[in-house]
């Protein structure tokens, strides 16, 4: 008998060990996959650069002259430097796998710092690090093309005192625009979803009579959490996009309509989490406050709500996680156009949709996608830690219940 019990206990215990082993293994696999694939591309430039590479054709400004420009820093071994022009070039391979000549160093006084835009006329241009040099054309000799490599290009450049035109491309592939869009979305959505959600939770928990209607509302809200987000996206497309087109200068999906759609997705989460945290505030506080001659509203806003703070913080972090992670609804509500110049009333992409766009490219760009995934993971991690920190600080201040 006791042997049988031992067996049974051991078996059940084993199941819990196995289950937790699998969940940890899955977690490690995801993180491992993301980091192994994405780490190569992870650098600061990716975060700060534009996505779209722009080609420019430029020539020298009037009065620009060659001189002797000594490099102000030590250059790498693979860099070819022209002290006459103050320009260092090197060979590189771009994201598409093509061999290109890129700018490694530009002397601050070099003629390349102030160029004239040949396409537009009077606009100023400037060469920057990591720009791709496509060709340089001269008056007296044949053009230096990027296929010759950086050494040849510098040789030709050194032999000349002037050039006719320079074609180059700015660095692309960056996700700056998508990061800004994501931050806009977080801010706008929280501004809309938190007050409405917290307000509804307060009504449901503190003021609503306990009758059939309240219970119906509550179960409807619970149902909302289970609806696939793409359906919310359709709703955004059908309701919020036309609404924002009417009210603003938007012409299609835009960040505001996206934030509105996300707010609707978030409402049930915010309401439920807030309500749970309001419920655990001890009734003692309510009685104490009312017995002191405080009104119901004063009790709710001065005693109950501050005590539910950590729960509301949890709601916020869940909300932010959902905003960052949401993609399906945003494909409809904002669109999938990756933008560098982000405007609230224009199409753009969040980081998650950026991944979606990268993976629907031909061929799919797994490296860049996983790099973005790393960035998303880091943002979520930082947010989590800061919320925990804030929550602990509040607890310290107010004691055990905060």
């Amino acid at each position, binding site marked *: 008998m006791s042997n049988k019990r031992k067996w049974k206990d051991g078996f059940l215990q084993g199941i819990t060990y196995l289950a937790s082993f699998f969940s940890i293994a899955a977690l490690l696999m995801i993180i491992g996959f993301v980091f192994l694939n994405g780490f190569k591309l992870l650098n600061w430039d990716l975060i700060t650069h534009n996505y779209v590479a722009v080609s420019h054709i430029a020539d020298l400004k009037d009065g620009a002259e060659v001189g002797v420009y000594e490099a102000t820093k030590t250059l790498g071994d693979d860099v070819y430097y022209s002290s006459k022009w103050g320009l260092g070039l090197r060979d590189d391979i771009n994201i598409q796998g093509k061999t290109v000549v890129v700018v490694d160093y530009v002397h601050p006084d070099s003629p390349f710092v102030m160029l004239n835009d040949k396409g537009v006329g009077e606009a100023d241009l400037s060469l920057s690090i990591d720009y791709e040099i496509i060709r340089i054309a001269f008056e007296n000799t044949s053009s230096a093309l990027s296929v010759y490599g950086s050494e040849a290009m510098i040789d030709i450049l050194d032999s000349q005192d002037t050039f006719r035109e320079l074609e180059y491309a700015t660095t692309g592939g960056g996700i700056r625009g998508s990061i800004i869009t994501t931050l806009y979305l977080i801010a706008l959505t929280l501004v809309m979803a938190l007050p409405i959600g917290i307000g509804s939770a307060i009504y449901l928990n503190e003021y609503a009579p306990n009758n059939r209607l309240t219970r119906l509302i509550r179960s409807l809200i619970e149902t909302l959490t289970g609806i696939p987000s793409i359906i919310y996206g359709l709703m955004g497309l059908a309701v919020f996009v036309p609404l924002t087109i009417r009210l603003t200068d938007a012409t299609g999906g835009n960040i505001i309509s996206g934030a509105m759609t996300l707010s609707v997705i978030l409402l049930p989460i915010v309401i439920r989490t807030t309500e749970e945290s309001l419920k655990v505030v001890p009734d003692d*506080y309510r009685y104490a406050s*009312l017995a002191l001659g405080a009104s119901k509203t004063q009790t709710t806003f001065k005693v109950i709500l501050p005590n539910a703070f950590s729960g509301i913080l949890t709601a916020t972090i869940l909300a932010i996680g959902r905003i960052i992670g949401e993609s399906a609804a945003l494909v409809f509500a904002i669109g999938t156009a990756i933008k560098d110049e982000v405007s609230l009333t224009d199409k753009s992409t969040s980081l998650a949709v950026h991944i979606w766009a990268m993976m629907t490219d031909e061929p799919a760009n797994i490296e860049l996608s996983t790099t973005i995934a790393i960035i998303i993971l880091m943002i979520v991690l930082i947010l989590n830690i800061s919320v925990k920190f804030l929550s602990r600080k509040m607890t310290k201040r*107010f004691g055990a219940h905060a």
Partner: protein
Amino acid sequence: MTTIESNIIFDIKDLNLYYGDKIALKQINLAIHEKEVTALIGPSGCGKSTFLRTLNRMNDLIPSCKIDGDVHYSDENIYRNGMDIIGLRKRVGMVFQKPNPFPMSIYDNITYGPKCQGIKDKKELKEIVESSLKQAALWDEVKDRLKESALSLSGGQQQRLCIARTIAMKPEVILMDEPTSALDPVATAKIEDLVIELKKQYTIIIVTHNMQQAARISDKTAFFLLGEIIEYGDTSHIFSTPDHKKTEEYITGRFG
């Protein structure tokens, strides 16, 4: 036996209270005198706490609770339509069984009530804090740490803080619902001393399970049993020569 003639502050007539269909208080008739300590005793579930909560209408918070009869407070029926309940609770303060300071600083706990009434002047609030804490015999212990969390205080200190918080509202009556049942004997003695001290300025109605406590601090005692008042009179009388057999049995510990 000498009874000091004093004014009646609470006059309860034919009070019945129901929780749903169940009757919890039956035909209560009671006159409570000003600036005295009235103790409500009786076994668990006899309705004494329920009765206490009818006096500042805290029973309103229980949805199934229904009341008929009159509760006159200073010649005003507090169960009439349009009664200013917030004003009533300001004048009839309450201290609960478990110390329940808000999770705020000591200072904020005291100023919570006055601030809810709209007092904003910092100097006035400071004076209220000092005088309330002094009256609650807590000032010397906490005067250097008013900004600290009230939850850092001991249980007895927390309960005195709750009394101070009530005093800060400048009430006329303080209702106490077993204020020492969660405290140790030393803290209990302090609260009892405090009650005797507070009697000079306030009318105090206290629910207690502790017979000795009732005998020590109260002027009048009401004995509750199964929702009815069995006996009400001077404490000295009730504890020496009760008129009712049930009262004697309860006081001597034969049931309850």
